[in-house]
């Protein structure tokens, strides 16, 4: 049973993507239904896989029936099955949100027909990375999901997105090349790329060689997971993408990197040679990330920095290399995937409702839309780790593991973790007090549509009236349009100074700038519904924390033991 189901989380989205591409933009309704159905199927399969893997232990499938060390192996153990379930859940939530957004924005006629196929390919890549039983297949999984993410991040090809996308692409390429070079070195040293086989052979290498291989792999994965000092790309590139895209990136992509770090540290290099380095990295990631968040005034940027910061918690758990630490890290990964995705979706709703994501421009949202306020408040408190939410449980587990470790560095990290939690509360409650709680009348001057659009970036790219639409994709920038561009730059300058000095901008250059009053648009039901569902999922994580933590505990025990994984790969003559 488990062997039939294992390839499905990779296969279904890939086939679905092909079908969605064939259906194309001509039948958007079929395309949407198809994507939702495929992801629902993936979710179902993942849940069944988790149940089976938790009951019977790990199992492996040799793709194409090749004998084990030769062919590609897909391995399901508790960790990968758990990751699959969470990934499929948030992917489904985000997809429904995106469908709702598409319907609400009136792109029924001309939808971006590549969104759904690309999204499905992304999920296939994520699933492949979680299931991969050999290093090269892990690399291929990474490449699939990264290539899809390049497309999603630069969707529409507006100037800010291209700028952000290039940073993201170049950094990702660099980490992929490092990963590939590490695979080459590992193959040269051991003669295999099968992870179960590597678990046995890597230990026989000289210590210096082991250290080199381990650090090369870790650097590559730490770039993907955005561990400080390799995290600067993330807050720079995530906030410009469309809300659903940012949400799924924030939830899933960095966690794939964390998953790869877990595998490297437990299965391949269990000696713990770099644990101290990882602890310092975790410390710096937590503190510097959250200090960045405190300095920001844009909701999406605040969330991006908290994302970086909270990666530190997971790295902390991994670096403890104890069962309790790993269990805490696994639980925290699950919690954080759900919570971060939800918060970014809610930030998308806030942007629709308030017309901006800058906290300095928002106001009175709690009165205008009480439901939205609840939707923000619950996951925000959860992120900060207020009891009784799952964020508290995860942080408590990690801090407890750190204290019981006993060393002085873990204790420093425990203190830093507590400080980070408090600073998270500070950062997100600023959004709450300014954006939601402050009366709308108190929002400072300069809150014009144009300024808001300038902040909000691509979502409202059409709004600044003086921005020549022709510059967007038409070649007419060379000759006669300099007058228009000059006017646009004047306007941009005025917006810029207005932003910098917080004085009211003169609207001379803004053409027929609209009045400062924005009519309150009702939020589309589908978007609201999926956000409600995601918040419900995060609350359910709290309610189901007992069983979940049980799975995380057993997964951590498996990881430290290594036996179940290796036995699963070499145990049976796996034929699908």
């Amino acid at each position, binding site marked *: 049973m488990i062997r039939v189901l294992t390839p499905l989380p990779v296969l279904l989205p890939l086939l679905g993507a092909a079908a969605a591409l064939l259906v194309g933009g001509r039948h958007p309704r079929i395309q949407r239904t198809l994507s939702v159905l495929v992801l629902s199927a993936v979710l179902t399969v993942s849940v069944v896989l988790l149940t089976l893997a938790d009951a019977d232990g790990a199992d492996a499938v040799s793709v194409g029936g090749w004998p084990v060390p030769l062919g590609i192996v897909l391995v399901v153990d508790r960790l990968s099955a758990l990751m699959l379930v969470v990934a499929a859940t948030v992917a489904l939530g985000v997809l429904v949100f995106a469908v709702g957004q598409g319907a609400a924005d009136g792109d029924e006629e001309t939808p971006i027909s590549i969104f759904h196929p690309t999204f499905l390919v992304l999920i296939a890549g994520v699933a492949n990375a979680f299931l991969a039983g050999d290093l090269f297949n892990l690399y291929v999984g990474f490449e699939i999901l990264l290539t899809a993410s390049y497309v999603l991040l630069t969707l529409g090809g507006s100037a800010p997105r291209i*700028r952000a996308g290039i940073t993201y692409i170049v950094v990702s390429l660099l980490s992929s090349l490092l990963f590939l070079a590490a695979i080459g070195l590992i193959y040269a040293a051991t003669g295999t790329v099968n992870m179960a086989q590597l678990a046995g052979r890597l230990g026989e290498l000289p210590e210096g060689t082991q250290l080199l291989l381990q650090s090369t792999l870790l650097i590559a994965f730490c770039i993907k997971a955005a561990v400080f000092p390799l995290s600067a790309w993330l807050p720079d590139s995530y906030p410009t993408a469309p809300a659903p895209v940012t949400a799924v990136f924030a939830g899933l992509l960095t966690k794939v990197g964390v998953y790869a770090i877990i595998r490297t540290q437990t299965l391949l290099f269990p000696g713990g040679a770099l644990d101290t380095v990882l602890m310092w990295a975790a410390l710096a990631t937590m503190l510097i990330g959250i200090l960045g968040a405190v300095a920001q005034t844009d909701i999406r940027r605040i969330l991006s920095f908290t994302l970086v910061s909270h990666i530190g918690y997971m790295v902390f758990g991994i670096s403890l290399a104890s069962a309790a630490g790993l269990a805490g890290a696994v639980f925290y990964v699950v919690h954080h995937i759900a919570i971060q995705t939800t918060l970014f979706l809610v930030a998308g709703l806030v942007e629709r409702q308030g017309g901006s994501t800058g906290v300095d421009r928002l106001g009175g949202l709690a009165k205008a839309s009480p439901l939205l306020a609840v939707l923000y408040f619950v996951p925000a408190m959860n992120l900060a780790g207020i009891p009784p939410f799952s964020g508290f449980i995860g942080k408590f587990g990690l801090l407890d593991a750190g204290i019981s470790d006993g060393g002085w560095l873990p204790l420093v990290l425990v203190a830093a973790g507590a400080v980070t939690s408090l600073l998270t509360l500070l950062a997100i409650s600023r959004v709450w007090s300014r954006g939601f709680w402050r009366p709308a009348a108190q929002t400072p001057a300069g809150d014009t549509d144009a300024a808001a659009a300038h902040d909000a970036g691509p979502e409202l790219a059409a709004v600044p009236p003086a921005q020549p639409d022709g510059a967007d994709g038409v070649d007419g920038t060379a000759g006669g349009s300099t007058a228009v561009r000059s006017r646009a730059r*004047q306007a941009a300058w005025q917006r810029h100074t207005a932003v910098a000095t917080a004085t009211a901008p003169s609207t001379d250059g803004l053409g027929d700038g609209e009045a400062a009053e924005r009519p309150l648009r009702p939020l589309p039901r589908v978007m609201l519904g999926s956000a409600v569902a995601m918040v419900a999922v995060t609350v359910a994580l709290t309610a189901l924390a007992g069983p979940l933590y049980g799975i995380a505990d057993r997964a951590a025990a498996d990881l430290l033991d290594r036996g179940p994984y290796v036995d699963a790969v070499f145990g049976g003559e796996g034929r699908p």
Partner: protein
Amino acid sequence: MTPTVVLSVIIGVLYAAGVYLLLDRSLTRVLLGFLLLGNATNLLLLSTGGASGLAPILGYAEPDEMGDPLPQALILTAIVITFGIAAFLLAIIYRSWRLVRQEVIEVDEEDRRVARRSGTDADEIDPDDLAPEDRPAMHADTFAADNEVERRLAQQYSGMASDDIDLPPTQRRKR
């Protein structure tokens, strides 16, 4: 293929040149750097295969005489991936060129705003202090004199989509 000193030196030089190019602000050079790095990695993979041998085809050679087929399969996959991504990068660079007539990577606008707000920050960058070719195009601080320069450049280099246009020095206006 037997790993030789020559191969190692070539790999090293390719890596060094690739990293150097990757650090450039110009996107075309970044692309070239990426290609060099990709090729260096492919050579590295090739050299992991151990001693050279005959083509690994069943019936063509005895198993002991064959070269290691796995690195070759890995390289093939890596080449395909590099190829696809290079094409995508090219498209992005072209798009960037069309959008801002400049294909250097810009300073992040929001970073600048946060830096302004706090007053003193290590990241604080005044565009006026930057060299002309480093100043982001379509940016607020580049509108006046640069517009004229850009117009002249557009006439002078019409039809030439190259990153090698250095903007001539312009007179800064005092603000």
